[in-house]
């Protein structure tokens, strides 16, 4: 078991390693040691960052410079679009889309001779002749990293590096110097609200559970990140797993629980593996288990794998799933803080919420409350995706505008296209338009506009996105994910989807539009849990802000974005067609005919609108009309 003095010794020993991973302003030959950080998040691992690490190590050893360079596999840097990403300290040089074949030159030029490897330097860091550090780019400048702290600077699989980065200091402080009430007060005063979507005050939740006079209580970390298109929680588990473990132990102390569970998606293998490894290390160091720091406090954490049910993000459903049943919600009250897992008082906090806790304890409630807006304190992590230049993960202070996030940090819309909408809150949220771009991002503003903060998915859409089709996409998802327990959600979402299918199929009527709105409101009012209560939001917000698109589908039988298949057809422009016959050969329904070197023609009656001709034509002669 480690005592406080042992942790201090580890800090002293490991600190110099972390000091190397800072931008110092030094350059060229004056540098005697370099840290090469390679992103090991899911995005970059998918584009082979593991092979890059192996190649780097091999190349470094073949030059015999192991003592002058370290290679570290870190958590997510955020700029997934440019993966695999490699950052070299102390210069802070950012390399993007690195390939194995780049490694010999990169090692020789940069690590051996001190000259950055020009070919893969991130374009946005070039400033004339000068190369800026990544921190000076638009993507990073406005970010404030609290929950994502350590993601990108430590090796998440090495507990000593977390400890050196003030890790487990907050737990030590809580256990040795604070009462349970003081911990809860600090979290309450910080103003931290649940980051999973509900936005409930975390400290208040803890207080409810603390007041229950029961022997057995539980802490659950909800890592069943369900929003399709969001990966904040996964990145925290992959990049800084100990921050979640530490916070769960603090929560356990505050409410009087000795057992925690993390409910994590089975579809996140890297996150599960890193978290499990972190658990083993924490147990080995005695930071979990009996008598932590010799204070008599006992706390354990077990992992439970989710099995792909969106509804399990709902607290009561998640509890039933851990109990081994179908994940179906039950009415509240009783709230889990009173009667939760196996009938015992239980708090359920989202990963990102927990990742803030240690920093709040260490820096104080006032510090945290000084960031953000009056009612939304601190920062929020967003997964930027869709039609945006910088797809990736960003952490910004509450109160920043949508425009700043999408256009400054996100770099705007690619391909010179026009911004159309931004979707926040995933299947429970709504779509906002250009006129909302200067609105601030906080819980209450987003809700008042008909969307919601949600867990942090932020999908950008451009002129080529059909908003009716987007509503249909989300309803298809919620209809599929409805657990079936309550009628308004089970049948209501199906009816909504049918109407949306009809409209995107060109068969919709004005009556359908009216019914869509009415039924949406009924489902919102009558559903048992948040899944049903929020499922109609994508429909309502798109009807509210993009009514003209619905009208175009219904009255003109047109899909203005050219997405809905029933409302478009393909034609070959005789002037552009060179008669190469490629489209005819590729057409799966033999709908294209013609003579070589003469314009081809599509028979609309046989065409199945698969779009293969459109994709394969090298002369852009196939048009959507």
């Amino acid at each position: 078991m480690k005592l406080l003095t042992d942790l201090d010794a580890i800090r002293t020993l490991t600190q110099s390693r972390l000091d190397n991973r800072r931008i110092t302003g030094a350059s060229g030959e004056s540098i005697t040691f370099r840290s090469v950080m390679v992103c090991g998040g899911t995005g970059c691992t998918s584009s082979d960052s593991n092979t890059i690490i192996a190649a780097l190590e091999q190349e470094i050893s073949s030059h015999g410079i192991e003592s002058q360079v370290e290679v570290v596999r870190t958590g997510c840097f955020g700029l997934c679009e440019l993966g695999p990403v490699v950052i070299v300290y102390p210069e802070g040089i950012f390399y993007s889309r690195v390939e194995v074949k780049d490694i010999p030159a990169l090692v020789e030029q940069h690590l051996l001779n001190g000259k950055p490897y020009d070919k893969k330097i991130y374009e946005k860091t070039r400033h004339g002749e000068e190369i800026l550090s990544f921190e000076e780019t638009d993507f990073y400048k406005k970010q404030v990293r609290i929950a994502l702290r350590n993601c990108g600077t430590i090796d998440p699989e090495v507990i000593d590096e977390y400890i050196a980065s003030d890790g487990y200091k907050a737990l030590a402080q809580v256990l040795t110097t604070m009462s349970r009430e003081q911990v809860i007060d600090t979290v309450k005063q910080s103003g931290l609200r649940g980051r999973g979507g509900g936005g409930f005050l975390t400290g208040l939740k803890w207080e409810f559970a603390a007041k229950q006079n029961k022997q057995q209580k539980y802490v659950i970390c909800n890592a069943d990140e369900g929003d399709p298109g969001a990966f904040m929680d996964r990145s925290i588990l992959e990049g800084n797993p100990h921050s979640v473990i530490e916070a769960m132990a603090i929560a356990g102390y505050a409410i009087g629980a000795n057992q925690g569970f993390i409910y994590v998606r089975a579809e996140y293998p890297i996150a599960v593996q890193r978290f499990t490894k972190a658990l083993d290390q924490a147990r080995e160091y005695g930071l979990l288990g009996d008598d932590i720091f010799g204070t008599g406090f006992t706390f354990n954490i077990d992992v439970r794998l989710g099995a792909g049910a969106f509804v399990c993000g709902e607290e009561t459903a998640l509890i039933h799933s851990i109990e081994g049943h179908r994940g179906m919600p039950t009415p509240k009250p009783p709230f889990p803080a009173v009667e939760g897992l196996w009938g015992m008082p239980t708090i359920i906090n989202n990963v990102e919420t927990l990742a803030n806790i240690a920093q709040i304890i260490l820096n104080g409630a006032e510090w945290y409350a000084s960031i953000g807006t009056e009612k939304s304190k601190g920062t929020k992590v967003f997964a930027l995706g869709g039609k945006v230049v910088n797809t990736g993960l960003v952490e910004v202070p509450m109160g920043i505008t949508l425009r700043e996030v999408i256009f400054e940090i996100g770099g705007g819309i690619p391909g010179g296209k026009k911004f159309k909408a931004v979707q926040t809150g995933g299947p429970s949220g709504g779509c906002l338009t250009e006129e909302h771009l200067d609105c601030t991002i906080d819980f209450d503003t987003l809700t008042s506009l008909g969307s919601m903060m949600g867990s942090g998915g932020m999908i950008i859409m451009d002129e080529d996105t059909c908003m009716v089709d987007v509503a249909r996409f989300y309803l298809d998802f919620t209809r599929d994910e409805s657990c079936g327990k309550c009628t308004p959600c089970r049948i209501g979402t199906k009816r909504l989807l049918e109407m949306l299918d009809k409209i995107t199929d060109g068969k919709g009527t004005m009556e359908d539009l009216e019914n869509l709105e009415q039924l949406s409101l009924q489902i919102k009012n009558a559903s048992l849990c948040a899944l049903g209560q929020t499922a109609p939001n994508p429909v309502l917000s798109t009807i509210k802000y993009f009514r003209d698109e619905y009208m175009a589908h219904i009255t003109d039988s047109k899909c203005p974005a050219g997405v809905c298949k029933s409302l478009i057809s393909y034609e070959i422009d005789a002037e552009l067609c060179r008669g190469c016959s490629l489209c005819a050969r590729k057409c799966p329904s033999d709908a294209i005919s013609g003579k070589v070197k003469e314009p081809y023609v599509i028979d609309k009656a046989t065409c199945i609108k698969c779009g293969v001709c459109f994709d394969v034509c090298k002369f852009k002669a196939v048009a959507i009309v």
Partner: protein
Amino acid sequence: MEHQQTCSSVDIAEADEKLEKVKHAIEQFKLMKGALIPVLHEVQDIYGFLPEPVLQVVSEELNLPLSEIYGVASFYHFFSLTPKGEHVIHVCMGTACYIKGAQAVLDRLSTELKVPVQGTTEDNKFTLEATRCLGACGLAPVMTIGEKVHGRLVPNAVPKIINEYK
């Protein structure tokens, strides 16, 4: 004939080995509260799906009615009650991928493989599945074939990728 016999004895040995693994996993979880879902994860890990005879074993060992096990297994998307093809293709249908054209990629796969979504090809080579967010939104649209991730897809890239697995 002799060859066939060897094959079948190998098959039986393999089947026994798998069942032993299942029993071992059950032993490990048996005393834990809420053991069913962790056990089902193990069974699916071992067999690739949840075979009915094995679920019967689970039913007996955990002392749970088969109907309840079926109820749980069919509730969660992650569990499959039918066997999969040799290569399982997961096309991400998360929002980020959908907005970037995942539907067209899925349609093209369906056309090329001549198999509906959630179906398995006649030769048992491929199973085509639409799946929830794979979490590689930076590479959208994305699909995985087995463990391998294929990103930044366009429909035209489909035939070539499939050929690598044929």
